[in-house]
Every structure is written in structure tokens, then in C-alpha cells.
């Protein structure tokens, strides 16, 4: 179910905490699974629960509490645009609208080709770079005016077509 490479990544996280507090690594393990598989499935929660020696329901509580865990499959690229007030003042909401038009989906939806999922999100902690967008949880994209949004989407599409 879980590869040796993934286990090694889990182990690195577990080693940070006291031996009897392995549960502390649950957030990191879930984030690793999400990075590798795109979302957190029930099966992954079961594997992590067993690995960390905690009840599966306790793992599930963590998955559902934190906004960034994908409880369902999402597109290959998850685009999360901040629309909180500091970003709103610098066209964060317009960035989201622009992407809705460009991708032909509403926020919360995934494009038919399965490439992009578009989301609205809360403060990313990068407010002075507004408009900002987080791609696949780990890549912050700053100063995303319409032109740069187009560039990013077009470049990712082109890269996928080449494959």
C-alpha cells in the first residue's frame, strides 16, 4: 500500500517528536500523501493511522479540520486564489473571476480535462504580493495580474500537451 520511499519520508517526520508522541507527525504524513496522490483517501488515512498507532477516526478529524487537505480528488493543478480583504483591495477577487472565465468553470469546480481545480482561499500570508495564488499547496505565485495568470495557465497547458 505504501512505498518504501514514502515510509522514509514518514519516518523523517516521526523522528522529530518524542517516541510516545508519534501522532504529532499526522499533519506532515497527510501532506506527504496528498503531494504524492493528489488527495487524501480513506485508505491513506487507514495506512497513516496504523503507521502512527492512532485511531483512524482521529486521522480523519485532522483531514477534515484543516482547509488544505483535499478530501476528494482534484485537478492536476489546484489553484487557490486569496480574496481576503488585503488582497481584495488589490484585485484578488478580479483574479479569481478572470480565472473563472479563462478556465470556463466556477470556483470550487474542476475543468473537464481534469487539469485545473479553482478555489477561493483565505489569507495566504503573502498579502503585500497581492494578487496571490497558491498552486498545489506548495507553490506561491505572487503579483498575479491577468497577464501573468494567462501566462501561467497557458504554460501549464502547453507542458501537459507535450507529454
Amino acid at each position, binding site marked *: 500500500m505504501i512505498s518504501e520511499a514514502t515510509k522514509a519520508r514518514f519516518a523523517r517526520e516521526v523522528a522529530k517528536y518524542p517516541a510516545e508522541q508519534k501522532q504529532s507527525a499526522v*499533519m506532515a504524513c497527510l501532506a506527504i500523501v496528498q503531494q504524492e496522490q493528489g488527495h487524501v483517501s480513506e485508505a491513506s488515512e487507514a495506512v497513516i493511522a496504523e503507521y502512527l498507532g492512532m485511531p483512524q477516526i482521529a486521522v480523519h478529524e485532522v483531514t477534515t479540520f484543516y482547509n488544505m487537505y483535499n478530501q476528494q480528488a482534484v485537478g492536476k493543478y489546484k489553484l487557490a486564489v486569496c480574496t481576503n*480583504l488585503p488582497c481584495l483591495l488589490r484585485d484578488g477577487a478580479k483574479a479569481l473571476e478572470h480565472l473563472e472565465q479563462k478556465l470556463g468553470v466556477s470556483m470550487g469546480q474542476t475543468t473537464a480535462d481534469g487539469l485545473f481545480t479553482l478555489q477561493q482561499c483565505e489569507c495566504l*500570508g503573502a*498579502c503585500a504580493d497581492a494578487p496571490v495564488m497558491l498552486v498545489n499547496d*506548495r507553490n506561491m505565485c505572487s503579483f498575479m495580474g491577468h497577464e501573468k495568470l494567462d501566462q501561467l495557465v497557458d504554460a501549464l497547458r502547453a507542458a501537459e500537451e507535450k507529454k
Partner: protein
Amino acid sequence: MSSSAQILAQFQSAGIETCFHGRHIDPQIYADLNGSNWTLKDYEARGGYQALRSILGKDGGEGLTQDQVIASVKESGLRGRGGAGFPTGLKWSFMPRQFPGQKYLVCNSDEGEPGTCKDRDILMFNPHIVIEGMIIAAYAMGISVGYNYIHGEIFQVYERFEAALEEARAAGYLGDSILGSAFSFQLHAHHGFGAYICGEETALLESLEGKKGQPRFKPPFPASFGLYGKPTTINNTETFAAVPWIIRNGGAAYLACGKPNNGGTKIYSVSGDVERPGNYEVPMGTPFAKLLELAGGVRTGRQLKAVIPGGSSSPVLPASIIMECTMDYDSIAKAGSMLGSGAVIVMDDSRCMVESLKRLSYFYMHESCGQCTPCREGTGWLWRLVDRIHRGEGRPQDMDVLDSVASNIMGRTICALGDAAAMPVRAMIKHFRPEFEALIQKNVSQAVASA
């Protein structure tokens, strides 16, 4: 690197606009940074880890006792940069140093208060200053294990911090018998994954224990019951980053660069309707007008209307009041708001206050952890009321209802998120009531006209 990673990397900020603009005033934490000089070698070249050497007596001197370190921090007037402004030296002295079991040190880098992006730039471009500050704190309180809890959305910063930790371990600044002394300290990075509430210190501890991030009742404070139930000291990233300078230059010098009771420099994240949004490190007590000027002033062709001076949880101040303020805890508090996390959200005369409040109310509703009824239900009420007024469907009694829902949340919840949701509402009504009433009045006249 795969091609998609290469593509995404092109859109990453280099920090030029927010940090390397050369418009700080006497910076200590952001001094001499350029984006590439974050490594251990660079930090040492800037005088880094000298403070640690001196307290451990590894610079030829006698070293400092734990009491001496805490006394310096007390003398400096350093106050917590996480928002509450609690005196750091005093907090450190609460730590039961003689406690026989494990004690913990935690850095709060969960920066999620809308408007705030200062800790990100510290950790990305000067990570060792936080590491050194934490080692010194650990020494002063006799702590052997620490964690830095980093906001999940800034994953690149988490990776940078882990790289810096590796460097510090390899150089003997972290780990067993630091620099050959009897003092050992292990430090690790932990990341969040998208929950604003985990910035609240007890929610953060729950999260660090691998649970939902729901705040605990205080007291007991973390100083007596913290991580895994053990005594724990938590400070903000910027608070720890201030410590090496204090040790190198003395508490009195730090206090002298701010104003009485408000020592040192402070980093302000300026966002919204200014020409040059970014982080600005200036001495405490700098006039607001000066800070606004550093940020390029209000966008051309516009006038200043209002400012939220300390992150979205702090009450809004109209232009006439904020222009008379200096940027420090006491001046902003006297004006009726809070310095908070130092996030200065600027709004110009084209802005609708009802719309601004609506967006903030949505945020608090979304981020309430749901434990306390007044917060869980009240934040929803607030949003629905403001939304209704904004859509032009408000009723005359709505202003009173808003005020009463807000006052019923305040002081009745486990953590300060409830207050944080309620306070902006009351301040908006206090200073910009006519804007709300105009929208309601329009609705009422339309209803009368069509009847």
C-alpha cells in the same frame, strides 16, 4: 526539476518589492539582506551567532547566566510581536526553570492574520536569526527541545527553514553540547495546513500534538500546561528574531531605539491602497504618516479614508485619527485600536466600508473552530447581516442587531477569535455608520415606493 515546477518557480516572489526596497529605517532584523544571503556563512558574516557565543562564554568572555539573559530581555522592553504585546522578559521569567520533566520552546510562525506577511520574509531571507534567538531563549529557560510551527501555505519557507536547521546542526550550534558547552537544544520544524485558528497559541499546541486545532481554556497558560501538558514558552517569529540584537547590544540600547515601554524596531506589513505594498522595519514610535510615505503614499489620485492598523482583528481607524498616531502599542491603543501583528491595511476614498466588513466577517465565520456557541453562531449572524445590508436588503433595526450580536460574542468565548470577529464590526459602525445607514435607507425608500 519537472517542467511544471520550473514554470511555477517563475512566478515566485523574489522579495524585492516587500523586503529589499532599501526603505527600512535603522533595521535590525531585515538589515543587509538581498535574498541570496540567507545561509549560515552569510549570517555569521553579519555578526550572527556571536550573541550565542557570548552567552556560552565561547568568545573568550565569561558568558551570561540564565538570569542575566532574562534581565537583558526585560530591560529591552521587547513586547510580543504576535499581537498581544505581552512583555517577553516577563513571560520568560514565568517559566518554571526548575521543573524536573521536559519543557518545550515553541515559535509561532503560523502568520495568518489577514494583512500580515512579515514572518515569511524573516524566515525566508534570514532564517538563522530566528534559530539563534530560539537557542538563546532555550538557554535562558533551561529548555532542551523546541519546534517552529510554520503556516502551511508558505511551504517554500518551511523548506528554507529546514535547510537552515541542517546548517546550524552541522556547525554545532544546534544539537548536543552546543559549541562544546554543557547546553543541548534540539529544534525542529512543523507545518500547519490551512487553519487560521492554529495561530492562537493553545490551538497551535493541540495541532502540534496531531489533533484538530481547537483552543484550550486559559489559564492554565502554556507556561504551566503547554505542549504534551508540559511547561512551554511560545513566542512569535519576530519576537525571537529580536533577541540576538538585544544580547549583542544590550537591553538599554534596544529600548533606546524605540520609545519607553515600546522597545526596538517593528516590522509593519503595509497592504491595500498604497503605491508600494511591502514590509517596512522601522523604530517603534515612528509616525504613521512616515510609514505611509515609505510605502509610497496612497495610490495616486486618491485620498486616505481609513486604516486597519494591526491586522484584520484590530478596529479600523478613520484617516483623521490614524494620521495623528505614532506606530507603537500605546499610541494605537490610545486611539482606540490595537497594534496587533503590525499589519497595516490601507483603504482609500473609493472603498465601501460595508463591503470591506462583509469580507472580514466571512473570514471569521469560515475560520471559527466551532467550540463556543457565541462564536460559532455569532460569526454567522454577523456575516449574514452585513451581507444583507450590502446587497441592499437591510432593515432599519439591523444596525442595532449587529451591535448586539457583536457585544454578545465579546468576552464570552474560549479564545480571542470571537473578540476579533466582533471588534471590527463595532469599530466600523462607530466610525462609518452613515455608509451602512445609507444602504439601508435606500432599501427602505425603495420598499415604500413600490408599496
